[in-house]
């Protein structure tokens, strides 16, 4: 066994130990398992949210896109900032309502607001549909990390199986308390690793950031700006807009706001989180540094760039530490995602269908779902060729469809009806599914239109269709009632 794998194994053991410690002395009912008993202060909620947001997507996907696409990767730095300024106003309202009514999940919120259990099932299914690609990308990342740091000893499928086993064990023993504690370790490591790599690699290979970007501009002119066609300015702006609206629509992100002790938590976080976002800058720098050092990674292979350049620059022991940071960035969010997906299926899809089942039964069902959902994700991980970033964009296109309905639910009397909301969400989700299954884009539908319009993110159409149907059906059903 090489030193890199030993280091990674040690960190995995450490995260298990933290999960077990965090659980000691607490009885685990469904509320403890998922919302941590609603007692977390600003720092903990901040860490939990950061734990979900800074994932493998950031670490391998962010560097992979900087390496493979260049400037379009910058969108990842933008949408968070906008989402945080929205969160200042949005999250306290959600939190107040959820706390008053003792809600557990995102679906509970919609059920309560619109008075429709069927809507809850629908919102849950949309959430799970979006969580699967998100979980798949964490497993993909874990697989890449474990197989790369084994220096060829483990194939990617073997690495994926090992990772998923670790993830399932971790979720079953710890629940949300484990996530929060491991998040502390993970955040310190990812910060240190990302900043160190982002500062060191450009200096080591090019003598600094300026010379590095000059060299890239020389070798690949236009790589550092948005292209005139394709991932152009239109694509960029529409994607940033969509993803920033979808940011808190993820069921796990939405429900993690419930763990806060008071609404002040969100106001503080709105000012602090954007700074934390800057970790991404260093991740980008790592990806850019890799371009001329480990050339030739095409398509989804670009996700390997961070680890490849790391292996070129450092001895195995250091590679192990970096791999361990990567492991935690997949394990913490992976566990949150897996737990959310299972809780949602048990509590918000099965319970309404099995009236009269006890909380205890539902809790057991949620736990039993963990390996099942994990296996579904393994299947897609091993059978899909997508890179990390497009997987997340797909998930975003799904969850963003919930935003109009959420917004209209916020006034004391919702501005839409449950029938309208369901029709709108169904339309949006159907449009997203259709365009992603058939690979439809504006450019294919209307090849003669100017690229300012054809480059728009296709999620915009789904969103507009959603809003139109929502408003029309709401107007019709309101009159009748």
């Amino acid at each position, binding site marked *: 066994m090489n030193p890199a794998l030993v280091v990674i194994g040690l960190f995995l053991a450490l995260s298990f130990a933290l999960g077990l410690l965090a659980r000691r002395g607490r009885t685990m009912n469904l509320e403890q398992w998922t919302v941590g008993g609603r007692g977390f202060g600003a720092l903990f909620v901040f860490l939990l949210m950061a734990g979900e947001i800074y994932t493998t997507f950031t670490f391998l996907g962010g560097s992979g896109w900087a390496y493979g696409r260049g*400037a379009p990767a*910058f969108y990842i*730095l*933008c949408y*968070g*900032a*906008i989402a*945080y*300024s929205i969160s*200042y*106003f949005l999250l306290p309202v959600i939190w107040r309502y959820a706390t008053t009514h003792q809600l557990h999940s995102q679906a509970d919120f919609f059920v309560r607001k619109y008075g429709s259990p069927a809507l809850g099932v629908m919102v849950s299914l949309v959430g799970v549909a979006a969580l699967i690609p998100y979980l798949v990308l964490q497993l993909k990342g874990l697989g890449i990390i474990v197989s790369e740091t084994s220096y060829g000893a483990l194939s990617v499928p073997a690495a994926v199986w090992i990772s998923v086993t670790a993830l399932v064990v971790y979720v079953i023993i710890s629940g949300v308390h484990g996530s929060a504690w491991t998040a502390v370790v993970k955040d310190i490591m990812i910060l240190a690793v990302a900043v160190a790599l982002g500062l060191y690699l450009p200096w080591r290979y090019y003598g*600094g*950031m*300026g*010379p*590095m*970007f*000059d060299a890239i*501009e020389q070798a690949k002119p236009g790589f*550092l*700006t*948005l292209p005139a066609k394709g991932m152009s*300015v239109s694509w*960029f*702006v529409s994607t*940033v*807009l969509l993803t*920033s609206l979808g940011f808190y629509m993820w069921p796990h992100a939405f429900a993690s706001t419930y763990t806060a002790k008071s609404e002040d938590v969100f*106001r*503080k976080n*709105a*000012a*602090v*989180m*954007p*700074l934390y*976002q*800057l970790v991404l*800058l260093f991740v*980008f720098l790592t990806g850019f540094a890799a371009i001329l050092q480990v050339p030739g990674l095409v398509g989804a292979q670009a996700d390997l760039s961070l680890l490849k350049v790391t292996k070129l620059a450092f001895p195995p022991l250091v590679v192990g530490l970096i791999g361990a940071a990567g492991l935690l960035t997949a394990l913490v969010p992976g566990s949150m995602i897996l737990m959310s997906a299972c809780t949602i299926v048990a509590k918000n899809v099965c319970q309404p269908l099995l009236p009269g089942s006890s909380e205890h039964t539902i809790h057991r069902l949620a736990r039993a779902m963990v390996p099942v959902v994990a296996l579904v994700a393994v299947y897609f991980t091993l059978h899909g060729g997508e890179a990390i970033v497009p997987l997340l964009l797909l998930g975003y296109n799904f969850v963003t469809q919930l935003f109009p309905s959420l917004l209209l639910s916020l006034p004391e009397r919702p501005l839409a009806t449950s029938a309208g909301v369901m029709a709108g969400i169904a339309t949006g989700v159907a449009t997203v599914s259709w365009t992603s299954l058939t690979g439809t884009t504006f450019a294919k539908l209307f090849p003669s239109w100017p690229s300012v319009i054809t480059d728009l993110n296709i999620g915009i159409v789904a969103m507009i269709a959603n809003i139109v149907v929502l408003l029309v059906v709401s107007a019709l059903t309101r009159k009748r009632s």
Partner: protein
Amino acid sequence: MRRVPLHRWLATLPGLLILLGVPFANRVHALVLGMPFLLAWIVGCVLLTSLVMAIVGRLDDRHAAAERRRDRERTS
């Protein structure tokens, strides 16, 4: 419903600078601190978001305190 206090509109500034500014900032030169101009613009907007949200938070606190005082005066 109470009117939105003016200072809260400040929170939209960084978002507008990103969404409306990127089309004009889409250039490599001049490098700012070694970063391509587009990247530097975005990093600047992110820093500004943090600053602006801290200011809005502070102004909101002050606004709430002033409103409490006014309510108390009205009742007394």
